[in-house]
């Protein structure tokens, strides 16, 4: 029996906090008065998973009787789990889409979205690749294979190897809408079939760091020294901007997006407390520590 893998980024990260006094925690996020131990199941976006883990860990200090289990797997996975009723909070690096809202309502759930952080999406290549800047239309042409050779965008005469996350990733969907389709809702372009689909963030960074012809994209927080980050311009007339907390916050970097937590209905009890805390100064300080942009500054 094989389960889907989320090596590294999604490696089933679990944070369990047991209340000292009560022997066992109820696994449902029930907020019946009188119980001392509660568990929150939190699953979804691999982009958000490290922040979510840090939140869960820090929240142990605030409310020692609340157990929070954090798992990655991708935004689509998290939202599907919320709809199927197996998690309390879904993490997503994209908006919940109309199909998912319909599916949720069909199973009696009204999803509520909270923007909890801002992320800049970095476009990365190998350090030996001479290209260091691209425009969004160029990126769209590259990912639909209207441009197939690096020499057409100022690089060597070599084929471009496209690297992407799997389609269950919110990052994938964001890139599809904002880059491949250039934000145009009527544009039905999709990724070229030759695009390598990586099941994790680490898959992308490792392929880009060892393949001189590869191009990939990933959340800024996941890019390492091993890859080169490209400066991106909205179009030919706009300035090229490198992603950073500042450029994402002031809106000058074109590929910045909100990261969300989604609950089933208006949050109640411990879940509401937790989300309030995340949106408060303590939670947002953790966002900044991990290389993402806090809400309220952007």
């Amino acid at each position: 029996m094989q389960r889907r893998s989320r090596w590294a980024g999604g490696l089933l990260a679990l944070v369990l906090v047991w209340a000292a006094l009560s022997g066992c925690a109820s696994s449902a996020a029930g907020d019946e008065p009188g119980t001392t131990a509660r568990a929150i199941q939190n699953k979804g976006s691999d982009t958000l998973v490290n922040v979510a883990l840090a939140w869960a860990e820090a929240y142990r200090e605030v409310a020692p009787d609340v157990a929070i289990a954090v798992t990655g797997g991708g935004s689509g996975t998290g939202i599907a789990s919320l709809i199927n009723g197996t998690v309390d909070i879904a993490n997503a690096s994209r908006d919940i889409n109309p199909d998912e809202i319909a599916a949720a309502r069909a199973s009696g759930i009204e999803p509520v979205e909270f923007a909890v952080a801002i992320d800049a999406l970095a476009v990365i290549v190998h350090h030996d690749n001479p290209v260091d800047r691209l425009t969004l239309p160029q990126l769209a042409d590259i990912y639909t294979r209207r441009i197939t050779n690096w020499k057409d965008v100022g690089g060597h005469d070599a084929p471009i190897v496209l690297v992407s996350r799997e389609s269950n990733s919110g990052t994938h969907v964001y890139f599809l809408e904002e880059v491949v389709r250039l934000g145009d809702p009527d544009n039905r372009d999709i990724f070229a079939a030759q695009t390598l689909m990586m099941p994790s963030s680490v898959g992308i960074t490792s392929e880009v760091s060892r393949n001189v012809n590869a191009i990939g994209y990933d959340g800024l927080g996941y890019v390492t020294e091993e890859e080169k980050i490209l400066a991106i311009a909205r179009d030919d007339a706009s300035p090229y901007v490198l992603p950073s907390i500042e450029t994402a916050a002031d809106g000058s970097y074109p590929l910045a997006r909100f990261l969300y937590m989604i609950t089933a209905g208006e949050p109640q009890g411990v879940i509401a407390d937790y989300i309030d805390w995340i949106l408060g100064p303590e939670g947002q300080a953790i966002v900044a520590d991990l290389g993402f942009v806090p809400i309220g500054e952007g």
Partner: protein
Amino acid sequence: MNLTQFAKERYAEAAVRARPAGNRIRQRWTEFLVEGMIQLSGVSTIVIVALIFLFLLREGLPTFLDIPLRQLFGGRWYPIEGLYGLWPLIVGSLIVTVGAVVIAVPRGLTTAIYLGEIAPPWQREILKPLIEVLAGIPSIVLGFLGWVALAPIVQSLGAPTGLTALTGSLILAYMALPTIISISEDALYAVPKEYRDGALAIGATQWQTIWRVVLPAARSGLAMAIMLGIGRAIGETMAVMMVTGNAAFVPELGLDMPLSPVRTMTATIAAEMGEVAQGSQHYSVLFGIGIVLFVITFAINMLAGRLVGVTVRRKGGSV
């Protein structure tokens, strides 16, 4: 009634007479119980297989009714846009599996022949356990090895990326090798020693004996070994997902086909099963892929059965 049978019956009678009646009843009871349990476990396997198949059909059949066949066997797999072309996935699985078979079968058979016919006993004793160790390596470990170590080597062969069908085939070949080796070795072992002695006695060399006598005699067993090896390869998921790049496109026909990335059916199910809402179209298509996979595996097994059957009849019914 021959002599052994006669002796056995006398012995059983004596044994029964020697015991008190209570014991005899208990014996009958345990017999009944054990028999029932064995029967139950035998039948339950069949029932479970039937249930799995029914479940697959129930969840996956809507695929073949709802989606026009032209699209289903079309060239594009992109589920978030409702494009469910299975063709690239089927081709991907076939390329990886055929590659694995081409690599593993000659190596597996020659290793088995060496072990069974040529190697001195002390070498056998060292090599056999080592091959079994190879069988014990979890597939995810082999996949990780392929991803870290093998992919850069494949890329240096001139592929645009190291994550290719060939990388997957190599990993799968090593996964299927222990199965192929140990089953074909058993098949060779089952060939009566008299065959070899006879061949050598009329002046055949060792090679002639192996090629002309032992291998044909063990043919059905060898075919079984190969088929089980293929079964292992086509169903493998995790390792393949890590090293084949998962790009759902059909590479151009040619010798460099193995050097292009592919997406297999198993990897698609594994990568996407977690994201789908139960009962959605995407969900049933994933089960549809399961049906296709099931049918292919079933066909391979049937074919294997046929091949084995044919050889048996030709040899006059003794294997």
